[in-house]
């Protein structure tokens, strides 16, 4: 069963007809050629497919494309300003925050969204003061808030450092 949908992907409006079974991840990769979102587990467990959907990070493998009709999608490819990389992207390069790189686009989208959540004062389960106005992103907070992004190369030490450095330039 097919349906026509419109998505705004990395700033460009895209209209396409999809089988209702198509996930947002497959629509991006297989139909629109946006391969910055990666397919790891395809079950919402690894975070490689993380994109921002209407401003919030989500696992795009568990979103049906038809359910995302009308939404704004930002992938890692949409974060840079031309050749000028996003500060989080620059920090991942500077801190060598990857090995094979497969999980990296998901890690970066997740980190950008996470910094926004922290700015809005969202707590985490390791926050000492659940009701604090200001979130202090120490390494434990960053690790907890990034736990939805797995890295099989285990580049975690440098991923946390790369994010930490963005918060304290």
């Amino acid at each position, binding site marked *: 069963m097919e349906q026509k949908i419109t998505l705004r992907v990395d700033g460009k409006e895209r209209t396409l007809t999809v089988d209702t079974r198509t996930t947002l991840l497959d629509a991006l990769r297989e139909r629109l050629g946006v391969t910055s979102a990666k397919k790891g587990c395809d*079950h919402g467990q690894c975070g490689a497919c993380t994109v921002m959907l209407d401003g919030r990070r989500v696992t795009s493998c568990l979103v049906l494309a038809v359910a995302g009709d009308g939404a704004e999608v930002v992938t890692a490819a949409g974060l840079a300003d031309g050749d000028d990389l996003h500060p989080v992207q620059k920090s991942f390069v500077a801190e060598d925050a990857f090995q094979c790189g497969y999980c990296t686009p998901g890690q970066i989208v*997740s980190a950008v969204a996470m910094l926004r959540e922290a700015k809005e004062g969202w*707590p985490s*389960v390791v926050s000492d003061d659940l*009701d604090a106005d200001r979130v202090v992103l120490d390494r434990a907070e960053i690790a907890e808030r990034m736990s*939805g992004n797995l890295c099989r190369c285990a580049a975690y030490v440098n991923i946390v450092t790369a994010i930490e450095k963005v918060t304290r330039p």
Partner: protein
Amino acid sequence: MKPFAYQRAKDVESAVTTVAARPEASFLGGGTNLVDLMKMEVLKPELLVDVRHLVSRTIEPAHGGGLLIGAGMSNNELAADRRIRRRYPMLSQALLSGASYQLRNLATVGGNFLQRTRCPYFRDVTMPCNKREPGTGCAARDGVQRDLAVLGADASCVATHPSDMAVAMAALDAVLHTVGPSGERTIPVNELYRSPAEGPQRDTVLERGELITAVELPAAPVAAHSRYRKVRDRASYAFALVSVAAALEVRHGSVTQVRLALGGVAHKPWRATTAERALVGRPATEAGFRAAAEAELAAARPLAGNAFKVPLARNTIVSMLRDLTEGA
């Protein structure tokens, strides 16, 4: 995935009417659990009625000083709400203990209650499972038992309910507001889940086509002094082996009010009423906490592979109550 039709309902009434009339139809909220189960063909709906856009995503004051939470709120939105963080911290912590930020941005409050078990035999269509296919038997009972229930289980099913949020909701006496084919009604969370002995294929008392529209949290001043603790195989992003939601008020060395519920041990969030009765009016001492926990867990019937959950639950209850007493 099996082919299915998808539609966005125009309003709650038409969504309810549509799903009530079609046995193979299902509501779609955040989809984090449903879409995953459809990929594995554990669930095979022929029609998805998307309700995410029509159920409220706000919190309103409720009569009696409580809060009415729109069932369409994301798990993260609820956890971050200031009123929840101040008045019901155990609920914020329970939400933040579950899944990942990405999943919690998608997952709705209503859908969280209706998650299916993560029992691996339920999720594997090549295995017998009375919950998935009634009458086929239970592969879990003689299988890997680490995650299985120790309380309230039945010969037909030993699966656990996976939610953290629902454990705090059970401790807080939350009440669901629903709209079904026969109209609106309210269902206390502690009466939502059916015993597996009644037939494990149906998790809840919700009728076909009955939609959760809101969750009411009654006023509970004791809940301002509450916590949620989750014990699991890794520090983050894993289901509970055992979890405890607890609120405690101690005056002049005695327990005056307590709320206690357990996760990871049963087919439902397990409200520990036996322990609560054993605590109220008695001295707030470690010995008393231990006796109350043991009274609650006397009904436990563990298997060889999950017997560790009984002392783990006891110790987690005792440490939670001790921490809440010391912080009182």
